[in-house]
């Protein structure tokens, strides 16, 4: 058992390089962000997978607000943290996420044990919980449409540039798109 654990640890420590986002991320012009048509029909088979394939939307929200919210939730989900600890004075979480990656690094060990599917599921539920607390609703999508501007994250990390582009696309859907279909539960 100890040997197996050591092997997993060694594997986890050598297999990944965790990218670090810049401290101050730019906010792109939403006009430059392309988004697929989210108004397409969905089937009963699609509906069965709405727990996985969906987009967030909150009316009356600007693109900048939605992007800050999605980046913040993404930061929680991937375990970003400043190394110098929690400060009691209020601070904009999204602007202070860059820093030590204690959670992101440490949890590689857990990822190696529980497997990629569980890690992907954990990310999904973290994003849903976080965005729900921020007042966003969920709307279902066809899997192919979803995959064109979303990512799943399991044992391997998503390239930072690709991640930021997709987060911007998700922010555009969350703010500037008229949602169709029924509101799903959180």
């Amino acid at each position, binding site marked *: 058992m100890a040997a197996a654990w050591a092997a997993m640890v060694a594997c986890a420590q050598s297999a990944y390089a965790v990218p670090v986002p810049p401290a101050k991320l730019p906010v792109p012009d939403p006009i430059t962000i392309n988004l697929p048509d989210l108004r397409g029909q969905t089937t009963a088979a699609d509906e069965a997978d709405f727990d996985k394939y969906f987009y967030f939307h909150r009316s009356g929200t600007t693109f900048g607000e939605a992007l800050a919210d999605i980046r913040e939730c993404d930061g929680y989900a991937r*375990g970003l*943290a400043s190394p110098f*600890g929690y400060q009691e004075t209020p601070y904009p979480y999204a602007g202070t996420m860059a820093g030590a990656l204690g959670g*992101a690094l*440490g949890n590689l060990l*857990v990822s190696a044990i529980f497997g990629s599917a569980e890690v992907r599921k954990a990310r999904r539920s973290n994003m849903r919980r976080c965005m729900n607390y921020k007042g966003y609703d969920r709307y279902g999508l066809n899997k192919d449409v979803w995959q064109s501007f979303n990512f799943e994250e399991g044992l391997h990390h998503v390239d930072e540039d690709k991640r930021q582009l997709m987060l911007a696309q998700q922010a555009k859907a969350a703010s500037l798109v008229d949602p169709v279909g029924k509101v799903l539960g959180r």
Partner: protein
Amino acid sequence: MSLLLAFAIASVGPTKAEKKLLQPVKDTPAVQLDPNGAYILLRSPAPAAINLFRLATPPEIEDYRGRRWQALQKAHTKWVNKHAQWQQEIATWNQTKGTVGGSAPEEPIEPTDDNLDFSTIDEENMLGFGPLFRFAKDSGGTSTYLQRVWPGRYVLYGSLLINPNGGATGMCVCMGTVAFDANAGEITDVGSVQVNGTDVLIYPNLLNKAKPEEVEGLRSGAITMMRLTPANSSMPLDPRLSSFKTVPAVFKRAGPVPNYYGVQVDRLTAIPGVLSYDRDKIVDPGEVSAAH
């Protein structure tokens, strides 16, 4: 502020010898407590891991910065050697056009303050209560945990099973929680902390097993994975502690706190008179907007 608490805040934290004293109090017929010690007492309806961290003081943060800087220098020195070795390897690999030795050797990442694998200061100050080392268990199944701690301000963080070699599972109340002071010469009674290891987003069948009066709250997220009931008269104190000064924790709202361990992110269920939310904003109960 007591002199002892003032001293604790001005110090760089406990020494190694002092850390050895900061242990759970054992369930023995006669209990001996240090009259100058600070203790935290909390209960749980079922055995559970409950984690708090102590807020670092300015001298501790300075000390941490120094230790972190030293670790970075050490890591960087190692990286310089590894990188030089990699340059030789990649040159050889390029000369052979990749026909020998498989795929190209991966360039070692230069350690920086941003990517250094070094625990955050809050992780260093993290405390675990339970699920083992109970101080008491009553006939109703409630577990009581009592632990000597370093005086200071504590933040309720979550429920974690932390592997000493790195990594953890569990949940944090990163999106909203409470803090309280633990003073020397007192047992600070936190009350009762109820932990659900999961929620309906992870385990939808939870609703089928829930108490009827909790189904809607669990569904909507109003009831979260961690609930705190401040100490009250329905939570009797163990008679073995009667000769020691016990005070109810005075809570203030806290957070958001980073997800240091990359676990499930949640928030503490709202507490009447203590903690409320306006969407994701952590607010005093009196500040809740009527619009939400």
